[in-house]
């Protein structure tokens, strides 16, 4: 059984001249008169790690929910490889290869670590509706699942119940589960949220490895993570794109600094605060 390569073919050069893999045009979302996302035009280039940052309530998670159709957009278009996915269903978007994670770690806590990954692997087998087949029929996927777990350092925990894992490891498991789908675009919603410094470094490394040959769009509060990982940054404030560019240009932008300082200071620690200012 061949294991899925965690590191796919390198995206061709990452040249920005090519058409974006994921694009939004005039994307907007109204909640009863309140516009949470307002005319957002995003272009995510293939092979990039693209960050979406901004103060609390800027609409970052709403954009994620719109992109994966967990919420329907009020106006605007979402294009994946040039084709509109605006009206597709959530699970269909996932099958296209756009796989999202969630702000709060999304694992299946009463299942074992191995089962978590296996449930992501089993769908392509086409037996997921087969209620008359024994669970043993899934054992052929175990090797592949263990291989994925090894890559995030969880192989030894494979038979533990997920609920018993510490928080940082749950996030690593979530990443392994996402990778099991061999996504082309990973949408990570605050992958380092609520983590201690050590775990943050681990996850940054995991994302860096996992992102090879893939495109990543991530919401992140921790600016040191953003500066270490991301090729391109879009700053969202009050539902609009305030600035876009690489870390140096964005952090030098006076409007961005005002948006951050004008509201709450960046949610992370004091020294990350220094990095922006």
């Amino acid at each position, binding site marked *: 059984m061949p294991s899925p390569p965690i590191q796919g073919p390198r995206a061709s050069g990452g040249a920005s001249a090519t058409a974006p893999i994921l694009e939004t045009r005039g994307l907007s979302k109204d909640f009863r008169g309140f516009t949470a996302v307002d005319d957002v035009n995003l272009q995510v280039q293939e092979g990039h790690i693209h960050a979406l940052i901004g103060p609390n309530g800027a609409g970052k998670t709403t954009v994620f929910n719109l992109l*994966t159709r*967990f919420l329907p957009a009020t106006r605007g278009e979402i294009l994946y490889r040039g084709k509109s996915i605006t009206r597709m*269903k*959530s*699970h269909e978007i*996932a*099958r296209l290869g756009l*796989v*999202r*994670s*969630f702000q709060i770690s*999304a*694992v*299946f*806590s*009463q*299942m*074992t670590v*191995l*089962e978590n990954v*296996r*449930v*992501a692997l*089993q*769908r392509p*087998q086409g*037996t*997921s*509706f*087969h*209620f*008359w*087949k*024994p*669970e*043993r*029929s*899934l*054992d052929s996927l*175990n090797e592949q699942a263990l291989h994925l777990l090894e890559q995030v350092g969880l192989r030894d925990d494979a*038979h533990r119940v997920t609920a018993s894992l510490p928080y940082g490891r749950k996030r690593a498991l979530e990443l392994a*589960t996402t990778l099991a*789908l061999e996504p082309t675009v990973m949408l990570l919603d605050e992958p380092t949220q609520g983590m201690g410094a050590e775990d943050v470094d681990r996850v940054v490394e995991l994302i860096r490895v996992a992102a090879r040959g893939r495109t990543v769009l991530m919401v992140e509060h921790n600016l040191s993570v953003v500066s270490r990982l991301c090729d391109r940054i879009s700053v969202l404030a009050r539902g609009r794109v305030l600035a876009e560019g690489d870390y140096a240009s964005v952090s030098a932008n006076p409007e961005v600094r005002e948006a951050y300082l004008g509201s709450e200071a960046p949610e992370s620690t004091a020294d990350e605060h220094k990095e922006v200012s």
Partner: protein
Amino acid sequence: MAVLQQDHQAARAGSAPRRITPLGVLYLVLFLLGLLAPWVAYPVFLMKILCFALFASAFNLLLGFVGLLSFGHAAFLATGAYITGFLLAEYPGLSPALGIVAGTLGAVVLGTLFGALAIRRQGIYFAMITLALAQMMFFFFIQAPFTHGEDGLHGVPRGELFGVFDLANNHTLYYFVFAIFVAAFALIRRVVHSPFGQVLKAIRENEPRAISLGYHTDAYKLVAFVLSAGLAGLAGATKTLVFQLASLGDASWHMSGEVILMTLLGGVGTLLGPLVGSGLVIGLQHQLAQSALGDWVSVILGAIFVVCVLSFRSGIIGECQRWIARRQQREDK
């Protein structure tokens, strides 16, 4: 009781070749007890327990393994009961097996309809919709002529199974009912431990995540709902044969509540929980009805229920499993 925990471990070990596990031994012992029981206890009482155990197991498939609380499962029990009762009463000589199959299929059809309507909602809304639909069925059964309204269907003939076994004999009928129960229990166990069951568990644990893995979760929930409804219908159909009676009581919301009570008491999300829960509730009802307490039975049952829920939330079997898990953890250290 250590065997209950072993079930999980055997399932987890996965690739291990099949061998005799303590859980297998427990099932074997229960099976043998089931075979011997009618020679010790009154068969009709035992059959009542088996029918309700099946009903509760069907309900538990939905609540325990998908996380959907249906407050209208009586509708499926009653549909199975009325269809089987009507067919066997109107067409004497019809095989009781065919009658039961027809009743089950009726519940499957109704389950598909109700499921399609209810499955889009979650939590309390799902419970309310299933309750409303079940109440609708209750009033339908009052009005429809074939149910004989308030009177119900009496004296449904049990008939002869495959033209050989005379089911009028309580012992013969017991083994027929026992066979149905064992087959249905095996089916539920298989559903829970199948590729489909894995997806159901994932949906129960975190539905948005299951969607983001590409699963069309509504479709899975609907299949589970239909399976559960069909098995509840099977329980109703079998019950009609046992009591030769199908009545409005089967369709009332009390019945939907009772099955919740049995499942929670025994242990939701455990395979043996509903069996233990229904045995306990039916047994208590039986014992208390014979005492001089009369209508106090419901009050006493209610009090027992409150005490149980407050002191051991995961039910009798659930608590046993936790106790075993704790003990095993200590041994590991």
